[in-house]
């Protein structure tokens, strides 16, 4: 203390710490993501194209479904040369109110979905604006938006950029335009990208989207100017997903503090009943009791310690599980329909599990298998992963789905599997998780996090379809063995007939009669043979052209995940 008193006023403000402090300043979210774009799925040019289309399509579908419209999405990708592509995504949704347009498209972390719990494709409010940012970064171009909310309104056209320093939209141009669509939204972005086919291509992404969403139509024009139409297979919009408030078990301390500050409720008890699901006034009182807090405490006046106490109180109070009617699974029938369209297999089985809960968030697991047919038998099985009807194409190895498949004992179901590896054989496994909040391992939404409740449900679903698969596989093996036995029998019948003819000096017709009778004797013993052979024409729902999408240049495209790994390694050195 005595040292400090000797310092002059000037010196007081001239320490090293002060010097360092001058360099410190706000980092806007936009700036942050500008530097860390890999977190959002823009690691490389190929992935950037995928992510941009994915975000735009996800938004379009969410918008249509919220408005209860059967989605019809137009996707167009135009090769502009020099690794530049123009992406156009157009929907028939409700359109966007004029004032909201800039914030939705050109401000990160702005959205309707983050603060509510509802099963939807987007959840963080990052996606499309990140694409806008990427577009701005790589091509210097603005996003072009056309939207119309009804035939009584004029369509609006906007060009937007992002002020990355202040995380604010910049309106570059706006005007009223003529548009023949009554309602809908069209976005147009120019980005630096590269277009490749294969497992992780946009073609594959759109195809898998069609599998998981049989109620949508996608009209897709690829960079080669070929138009592919994925027609609607089901004339029914999935049941509306109700929005639910958070369940107390699913809220973490930071979130709780934020909610306490933001609430309009005047008392703690009211806060609990208004902001959470499954909390009535009685339950709210017992939470307060367990937390040793007075129910009349003003939420905005609660300290961090008190919030922590509240968390403890919640933990000690028994609460009902969250409501489940907020979930909308694909449905096992629709899932099977989708699989049949994509894979020409001999056997299909799908299941929708009953809803379950992880950390206060309800979720449903659906699983399906397609076995045999024209699938290659000497490869690892094919895995299709979906989260809230969105296909996941990257980071398969890091995903809870993959881990659960590996941890399921497939040998019990007649499928070969080495220890700690995916099974191998002519099999496709599909897993869908529907939840009000899907826990991804990163913001780029590529892999599902390993919550024990989730992996357990996935395993149960896989076991359920696995058992159905086993009964088919075993039956098939049995019948194949039987037909092998029969051909064995047929080899020896003529020998027996010939030898008897020789031994007993029989005539030729007598010999033929022996063979005839032997066949009768042995057939009657064995009964009719069921035909389980694979008939490629049995599956009338199989769509060869559909299945070929994304396969065209499979040979010369590397695995993107591997590429990424290499890049990461390079970066570390």
């Amino acid at each position: 203390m005595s040292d400090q008193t000797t310092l002059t006023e000037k010196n007081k403000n001239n320490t090293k710490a002060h010097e360092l402090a001058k360099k410190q300043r706000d980092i806007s979210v936009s700036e942050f993501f500008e530097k860390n774009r890999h977190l959002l799925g823009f690691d490389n040019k190929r992935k950037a194209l995928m992510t941009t289309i994915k975000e735009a399509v996800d938004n379009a579908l969410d918008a249509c479904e919220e408005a209860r419209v059967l989605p019809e999405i137009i996707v167009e990708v135009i090769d502009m040369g020099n690794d530049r592509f123009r992406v156009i995504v157009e929907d028939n949704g409700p359109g966007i109110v004029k004032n909201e347009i800039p914030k939705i498209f050109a401000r990160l972390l702005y959205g309707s979905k983050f603060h509510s719990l509802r099963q939807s494709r987007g959840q963080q409010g990052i996606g499309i604006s990140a694409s806008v940012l990427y577009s701005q970064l790589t091509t210097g171009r603005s996003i072009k938006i056309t939207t119309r909310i009804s035939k009584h309104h004029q369509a609006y056209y906007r060009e937007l950029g992002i002020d990355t320093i202040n995380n604010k939209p910049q309106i570059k141009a706006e005007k009223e335009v003529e548009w023949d669509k009554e309602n809908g939204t069209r976005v147009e972005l120019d980005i630096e990208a590269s277009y490749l086919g294969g497992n992780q291509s946009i073609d594959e992404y759109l195809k898998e989207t069609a599998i998981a969403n049989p109620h949508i139509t996608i009209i897709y024009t690829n960079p080669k100017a070929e138009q592919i139409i994925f027609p609607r297979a089901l004339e029914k919009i999935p049941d509306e997903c109700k929005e639910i408030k958070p369940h107390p078990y699913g809220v973490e301390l930071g979130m709780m503090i934020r909610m306490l500050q933001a609430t309009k409720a005047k008392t703690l008890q009211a806060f609990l009943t208004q902001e959470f699901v499954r909390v009535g006034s009685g339950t709210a009182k017992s939470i307060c009791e367990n937390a040793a807090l007075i129910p009349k405490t003003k939420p905005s006046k609660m300290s961090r310690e008190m919030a922590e106490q509240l968390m403890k109180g919640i933990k000690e109070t028994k609460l009902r599980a969250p409501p489940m009617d907020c979930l909308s699974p694909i449905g096992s029938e629709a899932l099977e329909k989708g699989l049949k369209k994509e894979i020409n297999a001999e056997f299909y089985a799908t299941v929708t599990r009953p809803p379950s809960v992880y950390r206060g968030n309800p979720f449903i697991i659906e699983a399906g298998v397609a076995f045999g047919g024209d699938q290659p038998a000497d490869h690892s099985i094919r895995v299709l992963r979906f989260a809230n009807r969105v296909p996941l194409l990257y980071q398969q190895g890091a995903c809870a789905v993959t881990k659960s498949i590996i941890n399921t004992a497939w040998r019990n179901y007649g499928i070969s599997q080495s220890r700690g590896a995916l099974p191998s054989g002519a099999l496709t496994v599909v897993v869908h998780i529907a939840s009000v909040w899907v826990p991804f391992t990163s913001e780029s939404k590529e892999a599902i996090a390993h919550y024990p409740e989730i992996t357990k449900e996935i395993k149960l679903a896989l076991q359920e379809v696995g058992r159905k698969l086993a009964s088919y596989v075993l039956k098939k093996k049995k019948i194949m063995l039987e037909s092998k036995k029969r051909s064995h029998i047929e080899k020896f019948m003529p020998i027996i007939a010939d030898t008897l003819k020789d031994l007993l000096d029989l005539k030729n017709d007598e010999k033929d009669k022996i063979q005839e009778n032997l066949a009768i004797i042995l057939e009657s013993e064995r009964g009719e043979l069921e035909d389980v052979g694979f008939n490629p024409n049995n599956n009338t729902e199989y769509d060869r052209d559909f299945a070929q999408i994304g396969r065209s240049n499979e040979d010369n495209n590397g695995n993107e995940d591997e590429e990424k790994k290499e890049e990461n390694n390079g970066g570390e050195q």
Partner: protein
Amino acid sequence: MANNVINSIIKIADSVYNSIKKKEKPEVESPLRSLSNVNYDEKKGYFELNGKFKKKTMTASSIKTFAQTLKMLDFSKSLVVSEDMATKREAYYVSKNWGPAMFKEQPESDTVMDDIEAMLMVNREQMGFIPEEKGGDIAGKLIVVDKDSDTGKEIKIDCTKMGTGAYSIPISVEHLKFETDAKFILAIETAGMFQRLVKHKYWKNANCILISMGGVPTRACRRFIRRLSDDKKLPVLVFTDGDPYGFGSIYRTLKVGSGNAAHINKYFCVPQAKFIGITPQDIVDYKLPSHPLKDVDFKKIKDLIKNDPFMKTHKPWQKALMQLAKMKVRAEQQALAKHGLNFVISDYLPNKLKNEKTWLP
């Protein structure tokens, strides 16, 4: 005889054909060939079939064997008709022409052949099949009267004039005649002991016929000894190693036949044979160098005492086997050399011959 075989074969083929005509599953029947399906009657002196039959029905899994059995019957018939012969090995090679019915390994064809033999209740030589193995060697006071296969003239073979060699028992012995004034036949397990006795002309002093069995005696060897012994009323004495194999396999098979060939034991046994050594008591009396019994030996002893109808009938054998098990050792014939190379000629055999009480039945 030949017609009998052909008739039996045709009978079997006919029954198979008739079943097929009636759209019934054809069946063939043969006696169960194992020690569990034989009786031992001391008065008859050999293992006799107990009457248990094995029925083979043609099913998907047995159709191959069924076809092979018919093929083998057909082959046998052609052999008998053409008065030809085939060894077991040759029969196996002939099967290579049978397409999918061919045998992969010879043991498969041997089994089918043995089954047919039992089915027809004849011995395989009658079916035109001859064994590979040699029949055994003879030396001593015996003249074998054989025929020249070209001229049909009699040939006399004097087994005293074989020098240091020996006369080989042919595969078929039914046509042989014998001339001898020997007092007994000595059947020996090992070629080594046989050689020693031949070299020192033991047969001359002891006035006997020496036969080397070379392990378990072949059918021809057993039949030869039986015919010679019956014909000339000669006692048969057996001299083997003092171990479970010598007692249970070599001596027992020579005397009463085997479980596997029970249907023909009647002709291929020597009920009058007696065991002179080496007995377990000999190991004690002559202080013979010995080897410890192995696990398989103990197992064989236990099996003989418990399951062998012959050993079960004869108390002295049971005792001897128990004694061996207690001593936990075995001794070879050549162990007598401990007392001098020719101890066996000068002391052991003369002593044993004099003292019938030291023999085993």
